[in-house]
């Protein structure tokens, strides 16, 4: 088991606490979502990110507010890390019109343009070419922002991954591809879906610089993400960052997990990124036990607020069903 090494990066106490807060918020928010799912408050597909929190938190902290973020259907963690309101997310999963996508999207389709969060794509790898296009637009408009695109290792088998990598390199556009390699695409282990399992090697074929990092360790992810983001920003070219991680929960709420050993899951849980970061903060005396308790309480109350907000939300009237198929106004 890799241990937390001391890092080159310095995190001040305030930022450290914030990142710890975010990881805990994601974890507890999703525990709550799973609970609400069993009560049928949340329906459809629900894909939990539990175990992978260090990736979203570690990468997104490296971005600026102007950068674009695109994700998969497993995106509650990214939305929270990006600063989306927990209540707006919970209400979305309840299908209420107060949700971030007016309840139209549900768990898999969280959107918030005001924070440059472009969702929530449920067709595996469907968002990679779009990410390239957003980066292309930044380049053409000399905006100086970058586009960050998260996807799983399963997506890296799709043609769209390969087309996107080639286009991004060919056009030299500022996109950061973040592959969250959690070893399984639904029930298909990486050894059954990739002839080359060191996914970072796929960058070279397209001339995309790449690296791999231990995605279970927040400090490692932060260091790798800071470096990758800086490169994309400085040279305007794409970068592939592979974060090796693991999902502790089933693929979705429908999954009986026939394809993996319980022991394997238990082994990985020993590498849980949250206690690991907590221990690191305590050891470095960045945080006290008392402060941890306080953060836990803050998280609990934010989640309770989110649930209350969702509960109090309202259903969109049926006569509005055909709204948002075409724009009412001319595009700006």
């Amino acid at each position, binding site marked *: 088991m890799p241990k937390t090494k001391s890092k080159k990066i310095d995190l001040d106490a305030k930022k450290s606490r914030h990142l710890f807060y975010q990881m805990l918020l994601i974890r507890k928010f999703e525990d709550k979502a799973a609970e609400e799912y069993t009560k049928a408050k949340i*329906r*459809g*597909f629900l894909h939990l990110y539990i175990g992978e929190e260090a990736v979203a938190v570690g990468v997104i902290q490296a971005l600026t507010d102007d950068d674009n973020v695109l994700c998969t259907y497993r995106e509650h963690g990214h939305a929270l890390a990006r600063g989306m309101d927990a209540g707006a997310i919970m209400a979305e999963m309840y*299908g*209420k019109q107060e949700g971030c996508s007016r*309840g*139209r*999207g*549900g768990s*898999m*389709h969280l959107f918030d343009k005001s924070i440059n969060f472009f969702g929530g*794509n*449920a*067709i*595996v*790898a*469907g968002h990679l070419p779009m990410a390239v296009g957003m980066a292309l637009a930044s380049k053409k408009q000399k905006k100086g922002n970058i586009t960050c695109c998260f996807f799983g290792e*399963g*997506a890296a*088998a*799709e*043609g*769209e991954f390969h087309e996107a990598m080639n286009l991004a390199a060919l056009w030299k556009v500022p996109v950061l591809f973040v592959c969250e390699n959690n070893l399984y*695409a*639904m*029930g*298909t*282990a990486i050894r*059954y*879906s*990739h002839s080359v399992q060191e996914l970072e090697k796929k960058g070279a074929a397209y001339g995309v610089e790449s690296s791999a990092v231990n995605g279970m360790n927040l400090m490692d992810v932060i260091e790798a993400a800071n470096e990758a983001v800086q490169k994309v920003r400085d040279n305007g070219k794409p970068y592939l960052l592979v974060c090796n991680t693991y999902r502790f929960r089933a693929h979705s709420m429908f*999954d*009986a997990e*026939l*394809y993996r050993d319980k022991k394997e899951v238990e082994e990985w849980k020993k590498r849980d990124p949250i206690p690991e970061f907590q221990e690191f903060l305590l050891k470095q005396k960045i945080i006290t036990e008392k402060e941890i308790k306080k953060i836990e309480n803050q998280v609990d109350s934010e989640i309770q607020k989110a649930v209350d907000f969702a509960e109090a939300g309202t*259903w*969109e009237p*049926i006569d509005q*069903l*055909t709204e948002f*198929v075409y724009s009412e106004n001319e595009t700006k």
Partner: protein
Amino acid sequence: MSQTIKITYREAFKQGLREALQNDDRIFLMGEDVGRYGGAFAVSKGLLQEFGEERIMDVPLSESGFVGAGIGAALAGMKPIVEVMTVNFGLLAMDQIVNNAATLLHMSGGQLNVPVVIRISCGIGQQLAAQHSHSWEPFFAQVPGLVVLSVGTHEDARGMLHTALQSPDPVIIIEYTSMLNLEKEISTDMGAVNITKAKVIKSGKDISIITYGTGVYKCLESADELAAEGIDAEVIDLRVLRPLDEETFLASVAKTHRALIVEDAWRSVSISSEISSRIMEKAFYELDASVKRLCGVEVPIPYPLHLEQASVPQKSDIVKAVKRIINP
């Protein structure tokens, strides 16, 4: 008299699959998560253990790639059953299906057969939102060279695969996720079924309700309700969306003189628009009332239950529409 058994729609597919694999060594199943996961919808659960990795192939997320490979394997002497998890992802394989599977026989002047069977789950009804709720039957049904089957009943779930595997041409079997747990009685000796004809599921004299897929049981139940009110509706399951068997529904309209077409797919350029125009072209003088349609509302399907349900015809809509046609 033959005996009946109670069976789920899912189990009916599984029995058909198992039988196919037992009967012919050239047959193999390939698709995402068909093996170790047990099938995205548990249809192929246990088949990997029974038939091994050579016959039950898990494939990576590469829809265009593995559907294309299935077509290639069919060209080269195998009989692949390719499972595309859902039609939503089948869009990524449309090029292979349309440009290769459907055209090779013609482009080669009759030299190349593509005896591939492609099974695809389809439909709306589980609050999966816009990208996971498509009804693409009209898409497939537009393509000459494909045989397109829509599985609206348990008999067809049990028997269509068998017949499809005898076809020298590519067959698309459209299955409905929302029906998987539904139990019905079928005859224990149910096996191969015809895949060229539509079927009158319930005969009646007052109106022809023409439908397919998830519409079949919905329309049958509506017909029962209507019967209680003295309206005798005929229900037709189209079953084969391409090539279309028009004889069956034209004969029905000639008998009832009224028609309602029901489908979940979006209204414009749909199966119902085709049926409606064929009735207009070939049975116009049989009609006592204009043909009516109930279709999906033309909106990407929203997530919340009440909006999802409002997006496709419900039983109450069917009953209401029939009454309005009969007593305008």
